[in-house]
C-alpha cells in the first residue's frame, strides 16, 4: 500500500472514530447492553471480505478459511441484530395512566 492510501485510510479512521465517540458518548447507560449487541453485529463487517475471499477461491486454503469466516461472521451479524432488536422491544416507557380518565391499554395483570 502506498503512503497516500495509508494517509487517506488514517483520515477515514480518525473521522469515523470521532463520529463514533461523539454519538456513543450521548447514549444513556440504560441502552448500553443493546449498544454492545449492536456494535457487535457491526463488527461482523469482516463478512464482506470473507465473502470475496471465499467467492474468488484462489486457493483451497483460502477457501476453507473464507468459508469458516463467512459462517462465523454471519452468526455474529444475524444473531447480533436479532438480539439487539429483541432487547430494545422490551424497553418501554411508562404506559400506566397516572391520572383517571386517560385511556390505557395495559393488559398486564
Amino acid at each position, binding site marked *: *500500500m502506498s503512503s497516500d492510501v495509508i494517509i487517506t*485510510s488514517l483520515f*477515514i*479512521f480518525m473521522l*469515523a*472514530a470521532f463520529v*463514533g465517540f461523539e*454519538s456513543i458518548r450521548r*447514549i*444513556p*447507560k*440504560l*441502552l*448500553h*447492553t*443493546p*449498544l*454492545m*449487541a*449492536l*456494535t*457487535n453485529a*457491526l*463488527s461482523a*463487517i*469482516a463478512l*464482506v*471480505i470473507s*465473502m*470475496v*475471499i*471465499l*467467492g*474468488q477461491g484462489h486457493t483451497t486454503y*483460502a477457501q476453507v478459511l*473464507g*468459508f*469458516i*469466516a*463467512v459462517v*462465523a461472521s*454471519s*452468526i*455474529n*451479524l*444475524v*444473531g447480533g*441484530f*436479532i*438480539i*439487539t*432488536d*429483541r432487547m430494545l422491544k*422490551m*424497553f*418501554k416507557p*411508562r*404506559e*400506566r395512566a397516572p391520572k383517571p380518565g386517560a385511556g390505557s391499554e395495559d393488559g*398486564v395483570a
Partner: protein
Amino acid sequence: MDRMNWIELAYLIAALGFALSLKWMSQASTARRGVLAGEIGFGIAIVATLFWPGITGTGYILIAVALLIGSAIGVPLGLLVPMTAMPQRIALSHAFGGLAAGLIGIAHFFLEREHFSKFDLGVIGIEIALGMLVFTGSLMAAGKLQEWLPQRPIVYPLQNLVNAAVLAAALGLVIFQVFNPDQDWAVPAIAALGLVFGVFLIIPIGGADMPTVIALLNAYAGLSAAALGFVLDSKLLIVAGALDGASGLILAIIMCRAMNRSFSNVLFGAFGATDAVGSGTQEQGTYRSASVDEAADLMKIASSVVIVPGYGMAVAQAQHKVRELADALEKEGVDVRFAIHPVAGRMPGHMNVLLAEANVPYEQLLDMDEINSDFAQTDVVLVLGANDVVNPAARHDKGSPIYGMPILDVDKAQTIFVVKRSMRAGFAGIENELFFNEKTQMVFGDAKSVVAELTSEVTGQRDAIGL
C-alpha cells in the same frame, strides 16, 4: 465509473447507515430505528459485495451455503437465548467476530503477501494476533459467565511475567514476519500465540470485572476489523471497525471509572484474589435481621422505596418477581424506583435489560448520578443481590480495596433491607460495612423467594383490609 466504484459507493451508503444506527441508539424511542438503519446498511454492503469481480459460480454457491449455515446458527442464538444469559451471549458473539477477522487476515496474507508493503505486513500481523486473542478471550469470558469455568480469578505465581512473555513473543514474531514474509510458519505461529494470549489474559479476571472485559473485547474486535480495512484498503471496514472500537473503548472507560480503577488494574490486577483478603479489617460487628413480614410492613407504609438490584438478582432470575413487588407497592401508593449502579451485573447495562424484560418502565430505572442525592429522602431501600456497589467503605476507608469507587449512597436512607443468602462476604471478599449499619436489617434467603414473599405480604394484607 467501473464496477468497483459502484461497489465503493454502495459501501459509502452502508457506512452512513452504521453511523446513523449509532446516532439513533442515543434514545430509547429511536433505538429500534437505529437497528433498522444498521440492518439496511449491512444488507446494502452484502448485496454490493456479490458484484465483486472474480467471484466464480462455485464461489456463489459456497457463499450461499456459508451464509445459510451462519444464519441457521445465528437466528436461534438471537431468538432463544434468555435475557439472563445475555452477557455470555454477547461474549460468544465477540468470539465469532474475532475468529472471522483472524482467519480472513491469515487467508489474505497468504494470497497477497508478495504485494504487501512492510506497513501492510506489520498491520496484518497485529490484526491476526488481535482477532485470535478476541476469539479465545471471549470464549473464556463466556465460559466464566456461563459458570463452566470458575468465576473467581485464577492466579499462579509469575502470571504477569508469563503473560508479558507471550505478548513479547507475539510482537517479536510480527516484527520477524515483516522482514521475512516468505516464512510460511510465522503467521500461523502469530495466530497460535494470539490464541494462547487470549486465554491467559482472561484467566486471572474475576466475574465482577467482566463488564470492563467484555467492553474491551468489543473494542479489540472493532480494532481488528479496522486493521483489516487498512491492509485491504477497505474504507467500509475502517469505518465500521472505528465505530465499534470507539464504542467498546467508551464503555470500558465508563466501567473502569465506575470502579475507580485503571485498565491495567482490571487486566493485570487479579482483583480480590490476593490482596483484598488481607486488607479487609475483620471486625465483624453485629447485624440485625428482619423477617419478611416486618420488611413488608415497613415498605407498605413508606412513601418512597428504592430497589437496588445487583448480580444476585440476575442469578436468582428474580426480575419478574421484583416487578410484581414494585407494582404491589405502587398500588399501596408507594413511590418505587430502581437505582442502577453502572457496574451492577456482568455487562454494561445488565440490570436495565433484565428489568426491561420484566416490563419495568425505563423512567423508573435511575442511574447512580440521578438517584444518589435522593437517598436521604428515601424511607426504605431494598438491596437485592448487590454488595460492593453499596459498601460505604468505598467513601472513607482508605484501606479498603474498593476505596474511591463511586457507590450508591443507600446508607443515607431511613431504613435499609438487604436480601442476602448468608453473611458470607461478597465476591471480592470484602466485608460490607452497610450490613453492620444500625439502620440496616438483613433479610436472609434466596432473592427470588424473598421478593415473592414480600409481594404476597404486601398484596395479601391489602386484600384482607380491602374486602
